[in-house]
């Protein structure tokens, strides 16, 4: 079976580029905060040198802030690491919950920029399917991107994972703007279709319940 590798490749590269750029930006923000606080410490020290002593306890908040940013940076890098390594992985048994967590975390900046609030309702136990992790992440991102547009004025997006007999489902709920017609004209587009084909997944919309549903069989057929 031949997949549309041109489109899939293009999509993957765009996705990777976007996420990498976002990671870099986030990291730069973290560095900026650490930088500022280092500067602040410097200022304190210089003041003290000039004869204006201070109580060391005043430095506590500064150190706290920096440690917080260090932890944040650590998180970002760990995510980036997982993300980057997922590219090399072929069909693997992966937890859909974890994958969604990763994608949501990677897209945090974009979500925040659009003023959307994500409410996660994941299946209580890991939902295992066998897929190539990177392309799965790519597809979920593209659907999340679409869902953020379709969420309407309420700006609260629900994210649900379910286990079914045949496999699993990912549902984007509360897409109030779904019924206004225009989003569905351009979605799914070439990229989404190519990925759906590669991942052996089906996309459906429920206009009554205003949901977008991706269905996966447990194993990828080859």
């Amino acid at each position, binding site marked *: 079976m031949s997949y549309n590798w041109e489109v899939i490749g293009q999509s993957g590269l765009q996705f990777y580029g976007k996420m990498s750029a976002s990671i870099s930006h986030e990291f730069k923000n973290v560095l900026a905060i650490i930088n500022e606080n280092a500067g602040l410490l410097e200022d304190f020290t210089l003041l003290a040198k000039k004869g204006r002593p201070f109580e060391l306890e005043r430095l506590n908040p500064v150190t706290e802030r920096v440690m917080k940013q*260090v932890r944040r940076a*650590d998180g970002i890098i*760990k995510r980036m*690491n997982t993300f980057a390594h997922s590219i090399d992985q072929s069909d693997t048994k992966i937890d859909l919950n974890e994958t969604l967590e990763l994608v949501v975390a990677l897209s945090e900046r974009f979500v925040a920029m659009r003023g959307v609030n994500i409410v996660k309702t994941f299946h209580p136990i890991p939902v295992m399917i066998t897929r190539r992790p990177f392309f799965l992440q790519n597809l979920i991102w593209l659907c999340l991107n679409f869902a953020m547009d379709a969420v309407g004025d309420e700006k609260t997006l629900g994210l649900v994972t379910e286990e079914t007999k045949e496999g699993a489902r990912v549902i984007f709920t509360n897409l109030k703007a779904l019924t206004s017609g225009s989003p569905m004209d351009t979605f799914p587009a070439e990229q989404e279709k190519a990925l759906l084909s590669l991942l052996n997944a089906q996309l459906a919309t429920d206009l009554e319940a205003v949901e977008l549903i991706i269905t996966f069989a447990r194993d990828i057929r080859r």
Partner: protein
Amino acid sequence: MKVLLVDDEYEMVTTLAERLHLRAIDADFVFSGKDAVTLIMEEMYDVVVLDMKMPGMSGLETMEQIQEIRPKTKIIFLTGHGSVADCEASKKHGACSYLLKPVDIEVLIEKMCEALTG
């Protein structure tokens, strides 16, 4: 408890040693695997904290050599690298823990104690 820290990052290893001192833990430091092996031959350490990637000998090679000289010495890896393969390789060779940088000092001390008691 006597600890040897092995890492090529000067600022990191010196500061960590100082912090351990503040917690009444005797910590020495060296900047390469080769130096670590030389030191081990003369001194006895309870725990050695190793980085994976260093100039010259790698962390794993250093561990092997230390174990030959002082089999009873416990080894903890503290690395920025974080690959699953390395983690398993280290465990296979008998490392007690595998930690990622940056590390919470309390966690490090906990692992060191575990290594000595376990």
